C-alpha cells in the first residue's frame, strides 16, 4: 500500500522493507531508491545536506547487503532505522523550509515506487 505522506513512510517503512527483504528484492529496491533521490539534494547546498547526508549511510548499508534474503538481519535493521530517520528528516526539513515541497514530494514518490 502506498504511503500517504512522509509521516506514513517514516513509521511504515519497517513493515514494507522487511516484506521486500523476504521477497528478496530489498537490495535492488534500496539501490533504486537511493539513485532516484540522491540527485535531489545537492552537496553544495547546506540546506540540502541536512537531508542528503543520510544518503551516504543509505548507500553504505545497501552496499553491504547481499541480494535475496541471505543478508545479515542486523544490516536489514540498520537499513530500516536509517530510512526511518531519513524520512523523518525529510518531513521535518520540509516543514521548516530547508528543503522544498517539490523535493519532499519527490522523495515520497520514490518511496512509493521502491519501498512501499
Amino acid at each position, binding site marked *: 500500500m502506498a504511503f500517504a505522506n512522509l*509521516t*506514513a513512510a*517514516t*513509521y*511504515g517503512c*519497517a*513493515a514494507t522493507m522487511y516484506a521486500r527483504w523476504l521477497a528478496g528484492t530489498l537490495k535492488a529496491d534500496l539501490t533504486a531508491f*537511493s*539513485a532516484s533521490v*540522491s*540527485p535531489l539534494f*545537492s*552537496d553544495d547546498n*547546506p*540546506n540540502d*545536506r*541536512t537531508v*542528503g*547526508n*543520510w*544518503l*551516504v*549511510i543509505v*548507500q*553504505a*548499508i545497501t*552496499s*553491504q547487503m547481499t541480494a535475496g534474503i541471505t543478508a545479515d538481519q542486523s544490516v536489514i535493521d540498520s537499513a530500516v*532505522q536509517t530510512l*526511518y*530517520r*531519513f*524520512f*523523518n*528528516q*525529510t*518531513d*521535518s526539513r520540509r516543514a*521548516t523550509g*530547508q528543503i522544498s515541497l517539490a523535493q519532499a514530494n519527490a522523495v515520497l514518490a520514490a518511496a512509493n515506487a521502491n519501498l512501499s
Partner: protein
Amino acid sequence: MTYPQPRTSDQIAAGAPQWRLYTKVAGQGEIYEIDNSCTAMALGPESDFGQIQISYLDPSVPTSNLGAVRLTPQYPYGGRIAPRLDTSYPLSPPRKGIVLASLFDNFNTGYLPSGFNVSKMQLFVVTPILDIIGWQQPPPTLPQKRADKTFEYQFHACTVAANGGIWYVLPAFLRRYAMFHLFNNSGATIKNYEIRGVNFSTVSNPNPVGPGPRDDAESVILAAGDIADGTVSVVEAPASTKGMFDAYAIFLSSVAGGNISNAPLRVYLTDDA
C-alpha cells in the same frame, strides 16, 4: 539546531584545543556535520543521548568506504577520525568526505502520554541535548559517563479544570538509575501523581491525529495515586529492575486544577548502576 549548522572548525580556528558539538535536538532524523579532525571523541557531559553514531570516510572499509563508531557513555573513542574533504563518498553524484553524527537512540518530538486530555493537561517537554567533544590532542583522560542530571520544578502550571494537571517529559536515554522525589508542601492534596517510563516507537505512528491509542511503549513506574499535603514520595527506578527508557513521563494534578506551588519535584538521573 539552527541552519546552516555552525562549523566545528570555527572553534579550532578560534584557538580551542577541542571542538564541541552542542545543540538541542529538533528530531530523530537530525544529522550533523563535523568538519574537523580529532584524536579522541566522547559524549560531552551535558548529553542527554546515550548512543551517537559517528560515520566517516574510510577507504579501507570494503565496498562502502564508510567507517562507523557508536559513542556511548561507557565507550568514548580513542583514535583519529578526520573528514576527507579531498575526496568523496562513492555516491552519484559524489558527496564530500565529511564526518557525520546522527542519533542512534529513538526519539519522538511529538510524544504525548497515553490518556492525554488537552482540556485538562499541560505538557512540559524537556528538549534533549546532543553534546559531543572531539580533542585535537590526546586528552588526559576520556570520560566514561555523562554528567548526572537533576531536573527540579517547584511550581506546577496545571490546567484549571477538575483534576487539571501537568505532564513533565524528561529525556533519559540509557540512564541506569532514576530517583523521583516529590515533597508536597503546597497546602493541599496532589492528585493522580504518576510516573511512566517511555520507549519511543519507530514502527507505527505514535501520534495519530485525534483521540485513539498511541503506540509509544509506556511502563508504569508509579501507578497514579494521591500525595497528601505535608508528605513525601520517593521512588527509585534502577534499570536492573524497572527497565531502561528513552524518557520518563510524570503527571501530577490538583483537586480543582490550577497551579500548584511549593511542591518541589526533583528527578535525578545517572549513568551509574
